[in-house]
């Protein structure tokens, strides 16, 4: 008997929407890298994929392309290693299924570190808002093994380089997207910011947010521990999302 070689469902190209997702993710990545970001790569289930992304960016196979800072994080102690190394403005790219608990944990915390997130995977799609950018192959159940994930991060690399090389003579397309800069009263606004606890002193916690570190009052949420994930508003912790 001869085993039949499975024909992948990709003969016609990428599923609807994915080319646009790749385009916008590539531009966002190019903007971050242009501003000095490091791209942290992680794949708890398939660590070799994270390493492949990192080597692709650091040592491009196409001669003459600039080396870019990308690093594969270890699959063990992923959140701790990412927390210690990531700086505001960095990028975290994860590769894995939507039910990967280690990926879920690190993606939940990344906004508190000021880190932009990209999630590459296949099968059931992650919940909306799980990552800033989602590059997904819903029907390719073997994508981790048959070259389809490799195709996605190859395309991300190729398109990011196109952005870096050709985004206007003065690099105007690489400028960060403009933030709303009108006068806003934080107390009156509904602002709720994600914060990760660094240390606790009585009812006050020193927390890390996308904007840096600050002290918040934890009276409303009760006893707090390091690495708890809080939502803060006007100097107060108002909700605990994750208890450590």
């Amino acid at each position, binding site marked *: 008997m001869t085993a039949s*070689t499975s024909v992948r469902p990709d003969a016609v190209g990428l599923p609807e929407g994915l080319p*646009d997702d790749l385009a916008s993710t590539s531009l966002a990545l190019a903007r971050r890298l242009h501003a000095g970001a490091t791209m942290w790569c992680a794949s708890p289930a398939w660590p070799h994929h994270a390493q492949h992304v990192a*080597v692709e960016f650091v040592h491009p*196979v196409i001669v003459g392309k600039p080396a870019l800072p990308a690093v594969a994080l270890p699959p063990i102690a992923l959140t701790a290693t990412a927390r210690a190394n990531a700086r505001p403005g960095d990028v975290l790219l994860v590769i894995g299924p939507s039910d990967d608990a280690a990926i879920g944990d690190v993606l939940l915390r990344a906004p508190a570190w000021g880190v932009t997130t990209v999630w590459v995977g296949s099968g059931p799609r992650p919940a909306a808002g799980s990552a800033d950018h989602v590059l997904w192959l819903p029907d390719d159940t073997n994508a981790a*093994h048959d070259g389809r994930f490799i*195709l996605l991060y190859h395309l991300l690399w190729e398109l990011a380089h196109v952005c870096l090389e050709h985004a206007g003579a003065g690099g105007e*397309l690489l400028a960060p997207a403009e933030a709303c800069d009108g006068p806003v009263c934080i107390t009156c606004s509904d602002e709720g910011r994600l914060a990760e606890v660094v240390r606790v002193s009585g009812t006050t916690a020193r927390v890390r947010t996308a904007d840096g570190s600050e002290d918040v009052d934890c009276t409303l949420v009760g006893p707090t521990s390091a690495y708890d994930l809080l939502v803060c508003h006007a100097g107060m912790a108002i909700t605990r999302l994750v208890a450590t």
Partner: protein
Amino acid sequence: MSFLYPMLEQQQPDAATLLADLAASAQAKAVESGRVCAGALADGEERLERAAVAIAIALQAGGRLLCFGNGGSATDAAGLAALFASPHSGQAVAARSLAADPAVLTALANDIGVDAIFARQLIAHGRAGDIALGLSTSGGSANVLRAFAEGRRRGLLTVGLAGYGGGAMAAGPDLEHCLAVDAQSVHRTQEAQSAVAYALWQRVQAHLEETP
């Protein structure tokens, strides 16, 4: 390249034009990738089947699968070894990557030279009946070729995955099974190599199931 990126012709591309060109380029490259993969699987079907039978027989006789390669091919070697040793379904067999341990790799590269990093490990671990499976996108990586020579000398089954029609790998005397793919770019070649490696695993699994 400009046919893929019409905006490169413009002096001042705007973001919408850039994004539309990027999306179109991504789709065109994905179609090309699918075409190259399908072609590699169809053209190489007989060679793939012969290699799968030989690997299955070696594994059933107690052989171990030792995978190696450089850079992206090192990560492919790790992925292939993981697929064989801890598959999502089917039978797990002894398989590992010779590019996995930085202590061993740096010791060998530092003390002997990078050409010896895989061959030297085969001297230490390789037994007649094991399988030396090397990947090289160019087909010409010196340390992969040296490992094949060492493996052949020691009675290992030698299997190579290469791009560019096989390159020096296909021409050398040390390789019993050369699975080559042909594509214009390194990236499309690596994607097709991965598709071929996965098909190889599927076929080996089928043979292991047939003759338990």
